[in-house]
């Protein structure tokens, strides 16, 4: 701030455009954009064509294929894109602090508004470009080979479709995206930390969801509510209030009245937020981590006088005598424990984990609370039924945690550039990757325990008489908890054989989509759907609970079968991951055979035999 402009006004304008152009090119060159594009196209396509992926607020509100339904799809997707906006605009404003490049940029004579607004413009352009996946995904839905009826949007004539999509994009989506981007841009500028910005964004979205969230089915908003609800759901509902079924099936509202004023108010708010961001921006470099951690001991500064220290003060002899390493079983166990502890602490210490857990728990508690409302027409008061409800309400949190942290954990050393230190240490090959899987399993187990505790808390608060904790084990933890744990192992394994974190995430998302697609195609047998034991399905449908081999139920055998498979996956992943500086998957896989000659190979062989034996026994039982 306070820096003199180097050139005339024309120069300042071109500087902002130049910054915007650089930002746009920089972000478009990032693999994150490619991943966002790929995933969002798949998600839009999936939500338009696969029932299992259909987004709640889209279902059964407006006639399928109607202009109003298309408009609402755009509105809902702007909510999904809020986190994309967050990632892109926060990166634009925080990149210099994170990379340590800030001092160089801030020492230039560029004015803060030119620099900052240029960055925002570039990042927002990327968000808007990514959002084009919504019309693209909806268009592709018309040609999806797995559907036998026209999708919602494809039944509208082309000319009318252009009009409808233009209205939805320009009037509804882009102002929403601008508002979200400006809000998160200001937030990131204020807090100057990616983690804090994400946490703030989650808090704001939770506040929005709890307060003025979209409730299209119960849409009778007052004028003030329609004006003040920022994303236009209420305004759209108000603008279409009193429409007949025929009107809802064919019309779009005019951009006038409350809808127009809602858009104007929130466009103005977006500009105000950008103006605030310029005011909030501080040229001073971000303060590094404080000097002392909260756990700084009271004896700080006092040098300890231990025998080892005295050795040290005598000089080189201490290198050989201070503490000699040993390499037995006890050391290996200590190494696994230390690695697992570090990895676990790393996940628990991130704001994103707290946010995901809180979001999941909030959603689960809200869902269970409404399901146990004494006034509800179909009130649930049985622990087993509530456990089923908990599955639906909470399942996103463990899947999201497994997806996110599999990548973060597996690639942490390489991203933090400490992989050479760890790889050069005398730890077993498996001790590089395996503790990451252990840590993720521990984190998920904590998450599941928290969700069960929350459900029991709801039952207790509602005064249920016959609370049965065991029902949560049999109806929630065993079928679904185990499935999510196994998913985490799959996610870690896929990361380990991928050339990078983003590719690993991509493979894992594809595995999830493939699972949905199999279900959609009617292929639901537990023995080929990874991790599934709840729907033993077709082959066993005659008596799914009938005892299988050795008196265990078929679902129990399926859990053993997939657990053995997961062990096999993990052993292969440990051998494939390798250690050292080689990033290429092919080169790492080249050493797989050599690394499989030790204990990893034995474990893999045992797991493979178990998979084959249990699978054969299950198939025999099915026939």
């Amino acid at each position, binding site marked *: 701030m306070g820096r003199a402009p180097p050139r005339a006004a024309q120069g300042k304008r071109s500087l902002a455009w130049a910054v915007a152009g650089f930002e746009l090119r920089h972000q478009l060159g990032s693999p994150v954009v490619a991943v966002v594009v790929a995933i969002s196209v798949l998600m839009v396509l999936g939500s338009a064509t696969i029932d299992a992926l259909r987004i709640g607020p889209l279902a059964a509100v407006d006639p399928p294929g109607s202009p109003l339904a298309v408009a609402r799809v755009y509105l809902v997707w702007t909510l999904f894109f809020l986190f994309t906006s967050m990632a892109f605009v926060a990166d634009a404003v925080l990149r210099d602090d994170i990379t340590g490049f800030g001092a160089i940029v801030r020492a230039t004579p560029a004015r803060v508004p030119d620099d900052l607004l240029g960055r925002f413009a570039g990042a927002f352009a990327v968000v808007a470009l990514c959002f084009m996946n919504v019309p693209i995904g909806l268009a592709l839905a018309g040609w999806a080979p797995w559907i036998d009826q026209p999708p919602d949007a494809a039944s509208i004539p082309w000319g009318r479709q252009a009009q409808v999509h233009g209205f939805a994009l320009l009037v509804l989506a882009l102002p929403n995206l601008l508002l979200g981007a400006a809000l998160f841009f200001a937030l990131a500028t204020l807090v100057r930390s990616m983690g804090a910005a994400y946490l703030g964004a989650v808090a704001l979205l939770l506040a929005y969801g709890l307060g003025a969230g979209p409730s299209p089915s119960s849409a009778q908003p007052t004028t003030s509510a329609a004006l003040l609800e920022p994303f236009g759901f209420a305004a759209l509902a108000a603008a279409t209030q009193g429409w007949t079924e025929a009107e809802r099936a064919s019309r779009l509202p005019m951009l006038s009245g409350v809808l127009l004023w809602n858009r104007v108010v929130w466009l103005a708010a977006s500009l105000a937020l950008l103006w605030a961001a310029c005011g909030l921006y501080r040229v001073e470099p971000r303060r590094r981590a404080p000097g002392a951690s909260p756990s700084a001991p009271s004896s700080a500064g006092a040098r300890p006088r*231990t025998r080892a220290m005295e050795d040290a003060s005598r000089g*080189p002899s201490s290198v050989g005598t201070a503490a000699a390493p040993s390499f037995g079983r006890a*050391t290996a166990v200590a190494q696994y424990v*230390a690695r697992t502890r570090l990895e676990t602490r790393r996940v628990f210490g991130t704001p994103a984990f707290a946010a995901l857990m809180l979001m999941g728990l909030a959603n689960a508690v809200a869902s269970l609370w409404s399901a146990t409302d004494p006034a509800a027409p179909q009130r649930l008061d049985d622990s087993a039924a509530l456990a089923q409800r908990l599955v639906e309400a909470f399942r996103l949190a463990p899947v999201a945690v497994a997806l996110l942290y599999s990548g973060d954990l597996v690639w942490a050393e390489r991203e933090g550039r*400490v992989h050479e230190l760890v790889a*050069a240490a005398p730890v077993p090959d498996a001790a590089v990757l395996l503790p990451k899987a252990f840590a993720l399993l521990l984190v998920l187990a904590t998450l599941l325990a928290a969700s069960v505790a929350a459900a029991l808390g709801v039952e207790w608060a509602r005064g249920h008489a016959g609370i049965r904790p065991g029902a949560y084990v049999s109806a929630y933890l065993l079928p679904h908890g185990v499935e999510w744990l196994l998913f985490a192992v799959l996610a870690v394994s896929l990361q380990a054989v991928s050339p990078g974190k983003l590719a690993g995430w991509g493979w894992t998302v594809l595995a999830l989509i493939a699972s949905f697609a199999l279900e959609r195609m009617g292929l639901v047998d537990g023995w080929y759907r990874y991790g599934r034991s709840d729907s033993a399905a077709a082959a066993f449908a005659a008596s799914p609970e009938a005892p299988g081999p050795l008196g265990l139920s078929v679902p129990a055998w399926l859990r053993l079968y997939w657990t053995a498979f997961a062990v096999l996956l993990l052993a292969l992943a440990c051998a494939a991951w390798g250690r050292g500086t080689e990033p290429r998957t092919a080169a790492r896989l080249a050493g797989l055979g050599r690394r499989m000659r030790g204990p990893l190979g034995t474990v893999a062989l045992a797991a493979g035999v178990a998979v084959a034996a249990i699978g054969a026994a299950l198939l025999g039982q099915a026939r």
Partner: protein
Amino acid sequence: MLDIRDLVHVYPDGTRALDGVTLSAPAGVLGLLGPNGAGKSSLMRCLCTLQRPTAGSIGFDGIDVLAEPQRLRQALGYLPQDFGVYPRVTARQMLEHLAVLKGLADRHARREAVDAMLARVGLWEARDRTLEGLSGGMRRRFGVAQALIGAPRLVVVDEPTAGLDPEERNRLLDLLASVGEQVVVILSTHIVEDVADLCPRVAVLAAGRIRLQGAPADLVAAMRDRVWRTTVPHDAVDALRMRLPMLSTRLSAGRTMVRVQADVSPGPGFEAAAPTLEDVYFSTLAASRPAR
């Protein structure tokens, strides 16, 4: 103790980073000199089991490193040229973690060793600060601490003094010198002064090959009466370079001091100069370049 034979490493893009490196090192500090891109870091990584060479062998104290990398790791302390830090982890926590990985399983002994090492590298006061909050020099000292913990018998340090102020640099070199009295220390650097100050043996690596090795004093003595110096105007340097095998030039007070290698005086205005290790280094590099 360390015996490297015919080591070759070719990267997938065809770059021949190591082209038949043969090198041996007894206990003590061996200075490995070489310009950027000479193959020093590739050699360090092969030596530390972080990448498998295309061909050749590495032996250390009876260990076949390529066949038994884990045994070598049990004797190894490694400071890479560039390393990062885990976020939100203090110096003491991280050093303890690495100490476990290096085989210090006993909690009490480990804590003592970690505290002693932190004191030894001058990080005791900063032991409970997060690694992110340490200055560049302190972070480098942490790197040395983690390399030395666990009683290594082979210490490999890659550019350890890069970016350090003179005081930090002296402290670190003293530490390596004291360690080098017992174990094999490979000090890879392109800073000739570090090697001249510290190493009883030196090897020069250029374009993937060892071009010269020996004791610095012997190498310098071999150049006695073959180094000449003069001071010329800046615009005369290029003409001189065309005519004479120039070792180095240095600008001073608007004129250029030139050092030239020749068996007899190159001409009027030149005076004999006492050779330095830097002269040896530049002479070796010049000889390793293909003739134009």
